[in-house]
């Protein structure tokens, strides 16, 4: 896409290369490239036998900005907002230029796409509920994630959580969104401004969910908002989820906490209703076999208990 920029060349780290910090003198062995974005690339590295993620860029200003965000996250006691920061330093490359980098915790996991291939939509909703907690805390800290997209999310295991891995777009509320991707951008779809407010993230989150249904995306057409609504109606079968997406896209629900409550309510409601239906069937069929009914009852209580535990514990 972009073929050329000014003066300082881009930096590419090779497999097996050693990156030595200019200030803190720490060594990092490059294993492989994890991905690259508008600002620099992220590499999987090994430092003192531990896997870490290293982000390097020719724009030292952007690196400094991102480090500031990560540092402020560290200040949130007892809560893990994004990967934790390990080191910040400069790398003097062989071409004579200096490149800034920072090192963060390496979060392993699979993409949401891969995860959804093996799991149903109920899992998606469970992931979202937990994720909305994080988003809520982030918003309370006065930040907006900004560049929320599939590529910046990872499903980590034990516990199964949706986590963000790149904080490059994180912006103070009230300012202009630092980094965004068109498909997930509220202004691109003419559904609002590009100012950092919690609603911006929630719009992007809706687009993340939509992208799960449309892996290749779609173009905005002549009336972007209408296109979006059509696409939602065509793909999303679960009615409450469809309703939620509509509300998010129309920005009638703009607080992470509200979205979480909505999902929780739907989840409990849906579960109890399906359980009751099963119960009814059991009753009709097994009126004669009384003992089976008893077992059914115990199972139902067990199921409800399970739901309670997964949701609130």
């Amino acid at each position, binding site marked *: 896409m972009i*073929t*050329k920029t000014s003066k300082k060349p881009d930096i590419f780290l090779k497999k097996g290369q050693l990156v030595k910090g200019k200030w803190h003198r720490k060594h990092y062995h490059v294993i492989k490239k994890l991905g690259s974005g508008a600002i620099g690339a992220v590499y999987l590295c090994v430092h003192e036998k531990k896997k870490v993620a290293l982000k390097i860029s020719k724009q030292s*200003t952007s690196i*400094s900005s991102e480090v500031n965000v990560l*540092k402020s996250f560290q200040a949130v006691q007892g809560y893990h907002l994004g990967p934790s920061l390990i080191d910040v330093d*400069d790398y003097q490359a062989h071409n004579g230029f200096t490149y800034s980098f920072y090192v963060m915790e390496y979060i392993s996991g699979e993409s949401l796409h891969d995860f959804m291939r093996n799991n149903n939509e109920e899992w998606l909703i469970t992931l979202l509920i937990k994720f909305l907690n994080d988003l809520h805390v982030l918003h309370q800290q006065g930040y907006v994630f900004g560049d929320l997209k599939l590529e910046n999310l990872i499903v980590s295991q034990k516990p199964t959580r949706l986590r963000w891995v790149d904080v490059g777009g994180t912006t103070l509320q*009230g300012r202009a969104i630092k980094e965004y991707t068109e498909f997930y951008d509220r*202004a691109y779809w003419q559904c609002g401004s*590009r100012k*950092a407010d919690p609603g911006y993230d929630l719009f992007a989150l809706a687009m993340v969910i939509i992208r799960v249904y449309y892996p290749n995306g779609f173009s905005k057409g002549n009336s972007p908002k209408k296109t979006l609504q059509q696409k939602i109606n065509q793909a999303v079968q679960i009615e409450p989820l469809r309703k939620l997406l509509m509300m998010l896209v129309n920005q009638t629900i703009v607080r992470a906490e509200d979205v979480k409550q909505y999902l929780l309510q739907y989840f409990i409601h849906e579960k109890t209703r399906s359980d009751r239906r099963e119960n009814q069937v059991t009753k009709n069929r097994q009126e004669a076999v009384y003992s089976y009914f008893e077992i059914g009852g115990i199972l139902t209580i067990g199921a409800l208990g399970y739901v309670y535990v997964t949701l609130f514990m």
Partner: protein
Amino acid sequence: MKAGTLKQILLLTDGCSNQGEDPSLVASLVAEQGITVNVIGILEDDRSEQPAGLAEVEDIASNGQGVSQIVYQDVLAQTVQAVTKQAMTETLQGVVNNELKQILGNEKTMEELPPDQRGEVMEVVDELGETSDLEVLVLVDTSASMTNKLPTVQEALVDLSISMNARIGRSRFAVYQFPGRKKPIQQLVDWTGKLDSITTIFAKIATGGVTPTGPALKEAMYQFGKKSLRRRFLSDDYKDIEEA
């Protein structure tokens, strides 16, 4: 700390100039006036064009102390706002570096500070970028080969206005095309806060053969002067807009 109003010329072109003075020379002159010259070279989507033909793009921008980027038109919108923002950051970094030199005495710049201190300085730069006023004069090459790219350019400009207006600081834009009918450049949109009203500005353009980039840049530089002169007379007007 205040950086005042940041002034930029954003040149959108697809090729080499072929008339008038050397655009790189003019760009360094413009930069001397405190106006940054950013250049975006737009390539054909079918990937047939030779980027080598756009060597001039980088040359103009470096002389104009600005940012340059060569792109295919499908990513133009994001590039336009990214280049504008990056140029702002670089200008502000220059301002901050000057301050640092005064404080620290020697030739110390941000890049040479240890990471921790650099982070603190960066917060100041970020803050300035968000709150500074910005003036962008968009200069669009409308020679024949650009004709099919103009709808994309227009979309990108509307998008630029959306991005910049999300900032706390005030943004003003003007759009000029070159070559003009009789003059080097021709005004399409006078200084305005929002570009969303420019739905069909490029429609009426008769695109011609020559590309007088140098003279166009020079003429564009004068448009900043003219405007500030007029603004002094209209300063009362301005307050009304702010309050509304």
